[in-house]
C-alpha cells in the first residue's frame, strides 16, 4: 500500500462497521483454533454459546446481566482513553466501589429506600473515583505510568478488601469472607419480580434494575464527552497535549478529572453486584469484569453506541461460555479470558491489519459506481 488514501472519502460504515466486523471475525477464528487445541469442537462450542445465551429466558437474562457489568467497565475504560489514559484499574476501582455501596447502605438505612439507592450510587461512584485518584495524580504530576500504578492499585485493593472482609466487616456468624446481607427492602428490583408482575415465572435471575442505570450511564458519558466543554478539553488533551496547552487547556486538571470519572464508572459495577445480585460484598466480586471492559471499549471504538453492542457480545460470550464449560469438560472459563485477549489484539493493537486494504477496496468500488 504505497499510495495514501483520502480518509474523507471512506464511508463511515466501512471504518466503523465493516473493519471492526472483519477484526472480530479474525479474533473468533483464532479463538476457535484455541478451542480445537484444547481438544473440543469449535462448531459445537458456538452452537452451545448461542443456545446458552439466547435459548431460554433465564439464559438471556443472564446475558443482559453480564452486559450490564461490561457497559460500566467499558465506559470506564473509554472515558479515560479519550484522554489517552489506560485505566487498567477498573477491577480495583469496582472492588472499592463496593465498599462505598455497602457503607452507605448500612449507615443510612434509616432513610427512605429510593434515597438510599441514590446515595449508594453516589457512594459507588465516589469510592471508585477515589481509588483512581492517586494513580491519576501521580500520572499528572509525576509522570508515573498509569498502567503500572493502576495495576498495582488492583493488587492493593484486592489485599485491602480481603483484609477488611476477613478481619473487619466480615459476617462473623458465617465462615466465608463476605459481609452480612443488606436488608431485603434495599435489594434492587430484579427481573424476576418484573416478570412475575406480568405473570411470567422465572426460577432465578441476576438481572436487575442496574441495567437501566447502565443505559443512563451510557447517555451520561455520551453527553459528557461529546457535548460539554470539559469533554472537548479532555479529548483535546488526549489528542494532542501540546496543542491543548497552547489553547490554554490544563492537561493536569483534565487527566485527573478523566480518571475520576473513569474510576467512578467502574465503581458503579458494584451497584449491580452488591445491591442487585449478592446483596453483600463477596470476596473477589469484580471477577475480571474490569479487564473485560478494556476489550469492550476497544471493540466499541470508545463510543457508548459501540460499547453497548460490544458489551452485549461479551455478555453472550460469558453466558454462552458458562454453558460451554458445563458441556465440554476440556473448556474452562479461562478459555474465554483468552478469547478476550485475542479480541483486544485484533480490534485494538492489530486494528490496522487489513484496514488499508478494506478501505481502499470500498473507496475504489464506490468510485467506479460513481463513474458509471
Amino acid at each position: 500500500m504505497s499510495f495514501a488514501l483520502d480518509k474523507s472519502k471512506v464511508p463511515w460504515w466501512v471504518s466503523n462497521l465493516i473493519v471492526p466486523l472483519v477484526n472480530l471475525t479474525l479474533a473468533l477464528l483464532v479463538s476457535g483454533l484455541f478451542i480445537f487445541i484444547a481438544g473440543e469442537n469449535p462448531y459445537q462450542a458456538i452452537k452451545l454459546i448461542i443456545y446458552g445465551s439466547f435459548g431460554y429466558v433465564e439464559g438471556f437474562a443472564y446475558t443482559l446481566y453480564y452486559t450490564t457489568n461490561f457497559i460500566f467497565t467499558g465506559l470506564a475504560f473509554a472515558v479515560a482513553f479519550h484522554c489517552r489514559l489506560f485505566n487498567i484499574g477498573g477491577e480495583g476501582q469496582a472492588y472499592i466501589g463496593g465498599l462505598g455501596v455497602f457503607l452507605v447502605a448500612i449507615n443510612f438505612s434509616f432513610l427512605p429506600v429510593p434515597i438510599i439507592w441514590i446515595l449508594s450510587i453516589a457512594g459507588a461512584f465516589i469510592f471508585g473515583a477515589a481509588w483512581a485518584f492517586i494513580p491519576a495524580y501521580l500520572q499528572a504530576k509525576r509522570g508515573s505510568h498509569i498502567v503500572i500504578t493502576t495495576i498495582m492499585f488492583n493488587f492493593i485493593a484486592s489485599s485491602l478488601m480481603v483484609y477488611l472482609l476477613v478481619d473487619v466487616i466480615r459476617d462473623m456468624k458465617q465462615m466465608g469472607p463476605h459481609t452480612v446481607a443488606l436488608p431485603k427492602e434495599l435489594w434492587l428490583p430484579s427481573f424476576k419480580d418484573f416478570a412475575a408482575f406480568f405473570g411470567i415465572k422465572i426460577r432465578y435471575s441476576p438481572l436487575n434494575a442496574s441495567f437501566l442505570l447502565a443505559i443512563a450511564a451510557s447517555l451520561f458519558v455520551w453527553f459528557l464527552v461529546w457535548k460539554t466543554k470539559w469533554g472537548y478539553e479532555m479529548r483535546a488533551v488526549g489528542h494532542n497535549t501540546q496543542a491543548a496547552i497552547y489553547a490554554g487547556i490544563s492537561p493536569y486538571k483534565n487527566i485527573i478529572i478523566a480518571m475520576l470519572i473513569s474510576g467512578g464508572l467502574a465503581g458503579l459495577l458494584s451497584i449491580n453486584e452488591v445491591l442487585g445480585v449478592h446483596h453483600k460484598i463477596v470476596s473477589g466480586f469484580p471477577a475480571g469484569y474490569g479487564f473485560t471492559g478494556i476489550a469492550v471499549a476497544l471493540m466499541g471504538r470508545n463510543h457508548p453506541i459501540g460499547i453497548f453492542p460490544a458489551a452485549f457480545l461479551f455478555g453472550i460470550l460469558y453466558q454462552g461460555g458458562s454453558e460451554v464449560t458445563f458441556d465440554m469438560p476440556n473448556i474452562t472459563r479461562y478459555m474465554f479470558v483468552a478469547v478476550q485477549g485475542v479480541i483486544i489484539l485484533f480490534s485494538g493493537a492489530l486494528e490496522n491489519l487489513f484496514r488499508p486494504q478494506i478501505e481502499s477496496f470500498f473507496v475504489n468500488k464506490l468510485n467506479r459506481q460513481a463513474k458509471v
Partner: protein
Amino acid sequence: MEFLSDIASLTNSTLRISTPLVFAAMAGIFAERSGVIDFSLEGKMLMAAFVAAVGSYFFGNPWAGLFMAIVACVSLSMLHGFASVTHKGDQVVSCVAINILIIGLTTALAAAWFGQAGLTPTLTDDQRFLEITLPFADALREVPIIGIIYSDILSGHYIFVYFAYISVPIVYWVVFKTSFGLRVRAVGENPSAVDTAGINVFTMRYKALAINGVLIAFAGAHLSTAVNANFFREMSAGRGYLALAAMIFGKWHPKTAVIACLLFGFTDALQIRLQGVELPTIGTIPVQLIQAVPYVLTVILLAGFVGKAIAPRAIGQPYIKER
C-alpha cells in the same frame, strides 16, 4: 550468631526472589531502549513458566523446557513487534492484549491437558533445576565471615540465580559498549536519524525484542522449573510489572535497575519473614496487608522520590518512514 544467620538467610532469599525481576528488567531494558513499550513482560513470564513446565514434563529434561519457553517468548515478542512495530498499533494495547490472552490461555490449556484446575503435573527432580552447591561450600562453612558469605549466601542457589546476576554486566556491555547497543539506543531516541544513517529501524526493534524474549523466558522457567516444581494459575503475580517499575526507577540502566530489583526482592523476603511475627508495639500485622507491601513500594518508586524518570525519547511511538 543467630542475628548473623538471620541476615544470611534474608540475603539468600533476596537474591533468589529478585532473580525473575532481574531477568525481566534486563528484558525490559532491551525493548524500551529500542523504543518499544513492554508491559507484556508479565504475560511473557507467565507463558514461559507454563511452557517450561509443560516442556520439562514431556521431554523429562528441564533444558528442553527452557528451550521451548525461549521459543514461546520470542514468538510473543515477535507478535508484539508485528502489531506495534510493523502495523503501528498501539503498543500498550498490544501488551494488554498479550497479558490477558496468556492469563487465559495458560490456565485454560493446563486445565484441558492435565485436568487439574490450572495446574501442571509436579515435576520430578530430574525434570527440574535443582540447587547448586558451589565447590568447597561445605569445607568453607566454618571459616568466619567468608564462610557465611560463600556457603550460606552465594552457594546453594538455582542456576537461574547465577545466570541473572551474570546477565547484568553482559546487558550493560551490550547496550552501552557495542555498536549494536548504540544502534538499539539510537532507534529508541531518534529513529529518523538512524534511518538516515542507513540502518533499518524496524529490524533493530525486532532484534531488540528477540533478545527481550530470550531473557524473559529465563524468568518464567525459574518460577516453574526451579523454585516451584509446577505451573499454577497466574503464578507470575505481577512480577512483570514490578520489574518494569524497577527498570523505570533504575532509569533504563542495568546497574541501577538491578539495585531496584534487589530492593523489591528484599521487601518481599522481609514480608515473608514478618508474616505472623509479633512486632514490638505494633503487634502482628495482618498477612493481607503485608503482602501488599511490594505493590505499594512499586507505586512509591514510580512516584519517583529521586527525580523524574526520563524515558527513551521515541518510546511508544511507531516509526513512520517519510515518503
